[in-house]
């Protein structure tokens, strides 16, 4: 608990002790807790399938010993999936797609609460009415209707003109690594440093609201995006530098979550549910050899 939260809780508790000796008396009757809807979905135009996870809020402490599987993530994590919901994504041109629940589609009926649409390839290869092409710069709306509740949100997929990939060599203390492309419509940017296989994280992701073009600079006193991970950038090592443009919902939900004073209920436009509906697009992913 933060000092501020603790201090404020002390004040509130102090007030309660002072003014309400009744606190210790028999309490009034209380209402029951009705489950609500939780939505997790981040659209990525580079993916062939877009996933919307629907689960219920819970009134029990979760079992944290379970092993989560990718085929059935909601159930294996101990959460309660929302079944048979109607999940629709709307494109900017009046087109739409109705997501198909994995549990319905798969022969093994795994994937309860996992709703999927197809967004790349031939529309005919996707289940009927489950195809929606996603392009950078588009605004996509989500509407969920379920027995637990309804939710709605929209996301502005950041616009990019190209994706930069490849290999480069950087001599620390001499060379710079600078972004030359400028996404449009992004709510923020995520900077990730991984190992050469682009799997192991090296340091935590960094979130910046404004685009920080200077990824690596010669001087340690300079302002550059990966200065936090300078300890990893040793000579003769190889890393994957990734910059992702994200929408405002994503940035508000994930990027500002570390600020304990930030009102977490604000910033995203998801209504009727907890969670997030956002979008992300990797526009810079370069393998850097440190020399």
């Amino acid at each position, binding site marked *: 608990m933060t000092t501020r939260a603790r*201090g404020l809780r*002390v004040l509130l508790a102090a007030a309660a002790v002072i*003014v309400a*000796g009744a606190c210790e008396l028999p309490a*009034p009757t209380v209402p029951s807790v009705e489950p609500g809807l939780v939505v*997790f979905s981040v659209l*990525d135009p580079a993916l062939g399938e877009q996933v919307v996870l629907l689960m219920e809020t819970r009134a029990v*402490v979760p079992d944290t010993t379970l092993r989560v599987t*990718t085929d059935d993530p909601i159930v294996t994590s101990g959460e309660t999936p929302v079944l048979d919901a109607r999940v629709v994504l709307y494109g900017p041109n009046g087109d739409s797609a109705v997501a198909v629940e994995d549990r319905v589609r798969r022969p093994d009926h795994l994937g309860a609460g996992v709703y999927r649409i197809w967004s790349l390839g031939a529309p005919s290869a996707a289940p009927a009415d489950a195809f929606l092409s996603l392009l950078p710069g588009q605004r996509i709306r989500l509407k969920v209707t379920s027995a637990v509740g309804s939710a709605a949100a929209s996301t502005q997929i950041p616009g990019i003109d190209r994706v930069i990939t490849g290999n480069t060599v950087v001599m620390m203390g001499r060379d710079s690594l600078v972004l030359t492309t400028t996404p449009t419509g992004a709510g923020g940017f995520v900077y990730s440093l991984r190992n050469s296989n682009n799997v192991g994280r090296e340091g935590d992701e960094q979130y910046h609201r404004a685009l920080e073009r200077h990824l690596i600079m010669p001087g340690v006193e300079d302002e550059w995006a990966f200065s936090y991970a300078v300890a990893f950038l040793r000579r003769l090592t190889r890393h994957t530098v990734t910059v992702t443009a994200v929408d405002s919902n994503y940035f508000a939900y994930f990027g500002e979550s570390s600020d304990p004073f930030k009102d977490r209920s604000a910033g995203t436009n998801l209504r009727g549910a907890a969670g997030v509906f956002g979008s992300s697009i990797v526009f810079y992913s370069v393998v850097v050899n440190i020399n």
Partner: protein
Amino acid sequence: MRPRRFLAMIASLLLLAGSAAFGQSAGRVHGTVTDAVTGAPLAAVVGIVSPVPLRNARTDSVGRFSFIDVPAGSVTIGASAFGYASERITVVVSPGQDIEVRIRLRIAARELETVRTTATISAEQAQAAGPAGGSITSLSVRDLRTIPALGETDVLRAAALLPGISARNDFWAGFNVRGGESDQTQVRLDGLSIFSPFHLGGLFSTFIPDAVSEVDARVGALPSSVGGRLSGVMDVTSGEESRAGVHGALDVSAISTALKLGGATPKSAGSWNLAVRRTYADELAKVVIGPDAFPYHFQDAQLHASLALRGGGALRFTGYTGLDLLQPTTDSGSAVLGGSGNAFRFDWGNKLAGLIYEQPLGVLGALSQRVSWSQFSTAYDEKATTTGLANHIADFHIAGDLTRRLGGTMATPLHTLALGYELSNLDVRYHEHISASSASDFSGNLVIDDTLITQKSKAQSLYAEELFQPGKRLSVRAGVRAERVPSADWTGVSPRLSAKYRASDRVAFTLAGGRYSQWVHAVRNEDLPVRIVDIWFASDSDVPVSTSTEFVGGTELWLTRSDFLRVEAYDKHFADLIEPASTIDPRLRPSELKTFGGESHGVDVLLRHLATDHLSGWISYSYGKSIREANGEVYAPAHDRRHDLNVVASYRKSERYSFGARLGIASGTPYTGWAGSYSRWSWDPVSRRWRVPNGTSGARDEQVRTARNTERYPTYNRLDLSAHRNGHFRGAEVDAFVNLVNATNARNVLIYTFDTSVNPPAVRGYSQLPFLPTIGMRLAF
């Protein structure tokens, strides 16, 4: 022509001739109306009963009245006051003579006689017979003493029992007037503003009852002379001692002790009143339970002095200082308030000093000037963690009014013009210093935050108003107020209009409308049901000026001479109200503020029975509906109480015994419920996979709330009872009383919380005040 009609015509001509001759053959009668036993000044209505009922007037706070241009000859003057038997006195007035009379009223006897005087009317009737100007409900300190209270009489909490005024709960430090937020009602002491007039999180008001003579509640249709608030004004008037020597009162209750001393100078040229009060639960707990068992107390002092000036003017000084202090040490017994090294100091309080000058300008005009300084400050200081919070707002205020009557008669001038100005200089400072107590608080980074916000804001206002009374039935009050807040780059013009039509002596209809603005704001998170202190900010380039419009229509009906019914309907629209974007985050710069608008409408009903026999009291009922809207989200504000019924009664069995009761029934206010908790999954944009937080992460268990304020607390009900035993002891008046607050021990909900430390997580409820008996005694000498 018939003889009767001829005589009536002659009489009319004589009357007109007499009126025209007032300036040449008239005198002046002035005097005081006081309690026959204690000598305390009374709020009374004084009327010239004969030779013909010419006019009525109300006494001022010192019990003084004055009639100018009284026709020479034998004149009978009658006086009546709430709870007292009426009196008449006859004097002979010579031309140019100035006669002083002293009228002493006695408390209505055991077998009270009904007042049947045809010409003398009660204070409430005088108000009803008054011109347009919005409804005001007045409570004298005598009214207040009959209302059961927690400990001693509470000046402001009693006002919350009137229609259109509500408090969110037993501890709420503020008023919600006709659906408006708490900071939209200005509380004034002798016309001087006080920012946060409550102690102990709202349980007690800051005014010492013995230092107060009257409370006037204005719940809307504010005239042009009132600015800076959107919803209402609560005017508390200091009492003034009219007896020479030193007199006073000592109030002792289970909660606190208050002492008031006062006196008048010879010939009533001046008076002074000083009152002090302190709670002592902390000292008692220290003895009974242990050191620092209850490390809280409040104290205040109230001073009022007046000086009569030549020409009927007066100079008055009002001062107030108060302090609430919560200061646990490491020895405090409570784990919350101390014990484990949680020593801190948390204090808050008001300070006020003001000078008021009033001067009649002949018989047709008056001038007043006011200068005051009012401050509210709060500070939290925890040395162990070097955490500190401090907020301070101070208002240096200068204001003045000039009125002039034109045409018509003295009793009913055709035009009453008023001009006025207000200059306000606001100084606001907010400072917080927070340091992380452990590295884990901020993901391994030590963070020290130092926020300092200062504001220097000014507000300038001018107003002009005319009260037009073309006859006895119709009166129209029209005015306009021009306001400017340079720091917010805002200028506004607020028209105000009210009209009153008296269809008969018993029935009147009223209409009013106006625009209002406000540039000081108490910012708080409405989810918290306890309002210990307010954080105040002024409007500037980041904080907008709030505005509202209001329309009010109503009727006043006298059912009998003792029973009065008032019904008013209102419709209000608000814009640019502000609240913090996150829970109690006072860093109120643009990104952290939310502005919102809304509307409120409803009906208020007041049925009041005057104390002309054993029983007195009132029934007030309010129906109100409030809606707020922000960024497309529509919700009910946390103070939206649809139905609010209060029945207040006082029964005087004899001169020795009296009883009081208050029954309150109200619908529950909204709150945001819970839909449980959930895990905060994270999306890895690089691997493009969802990740479940690990078992020990705080993201594994985040609370989910339902839509804002869609749930309602249960119906509120509370019955308070009181019993008084009056007597005398060595010349002093003694009132011993017992109060039973929440006599039925109703479990009214204060707040629900969601306890996630148990499995399954549970909603827990906390109650408001339980059954609380208190005893006390008042000694007046």
